[in-house]
């Protein structure tokens, strides 16, 4: 069984209302509601942090996924939702096509 510890924290009234509303909506006690909100909030916090880091060239998409504990496919969706595009340019696309033409088209595969 997971060990539990007591944590005292001062919360504003509107945050307490969030916990109470969640508890009512989900038919759970306030402790369970608070835990669920923290877990979900932490996940969203990490996704936001690593989407930004990926956009700024600070990490790769698989690293971001690993840190957020989600799949690479899910991380790609998160990046796309934020409007982040591949850095590939038309010139790079042309170079890639030329490379494929030169190397693979003349080989036996």
């Amino acid at each position, binding site marked *: 069984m997971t060990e539990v510890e007591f944590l005292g924290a001062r919360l504003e009234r509107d945050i307490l209302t969030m916990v109470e509303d969640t508890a009512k909506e989900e038919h759970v006690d306030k402790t369970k509601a608070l835990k669920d909100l923290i877990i979900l909030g932490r996940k969203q916090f990490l996704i936001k942090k690593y989407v930004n880091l990926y956009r700024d060239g600070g990490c790769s998409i698989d690293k971001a996924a690993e840190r957020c504990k989600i799949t690479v496919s899910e991380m790609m969706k998160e990046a796309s939702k934020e409007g982040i*595009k591949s850095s590939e340019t038309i010139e790079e696309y042309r170079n890639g096509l030329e490379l494929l033409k030169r190397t693979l088209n003349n080989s036996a595969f």
Partner: protein
Amino acid sequence: MKIIIDSCSVILLTKATVLEKLSGSYNILIPIEVYNEVLKGKEKMLKDALLVEKLKNENKISLINIDKKLKKKIMQDFNMGEGESSVIAGGIRNNNLVATDNRQGRKAAEINSLQLIGSIEIVVNLFRKRKIDYEKAYQSLKLLKEEGWFDNNLIEKAMEDIENDRS
């Protein structure tokens, strides 16, 4: 010449429904680390995970081991995961074509002067080699456009290119 491919491109080519055709047309290498990254989606029944596993079981893709020391250095230099860094290390060691569509991967490939390609070029090349027909190539590009991963101008340029090569 072989193509070493990362998780990002495996996922995009699956969404574009051409990964199976690609694996039947060219020699595709997937580092074990990339395979493991993609297979994490199997729990959620993601299509890319299920297809990659099927292609591996049918021996249509080759799983490869990568030099751990070089991989680790690339992981640290570029803050990359195991999969992406193993693709770059594989490109450096064996001079393979490197297929990646993610920013950090493309940056690392360029810095190391690797032979870099992306998913859009792969779709256009499959069409030019008549491994897929025009309708299939167009649909694949449309699916990539819907994913929102690429700049629209890039997809439209590719669509224009396949239209010009149609006859």
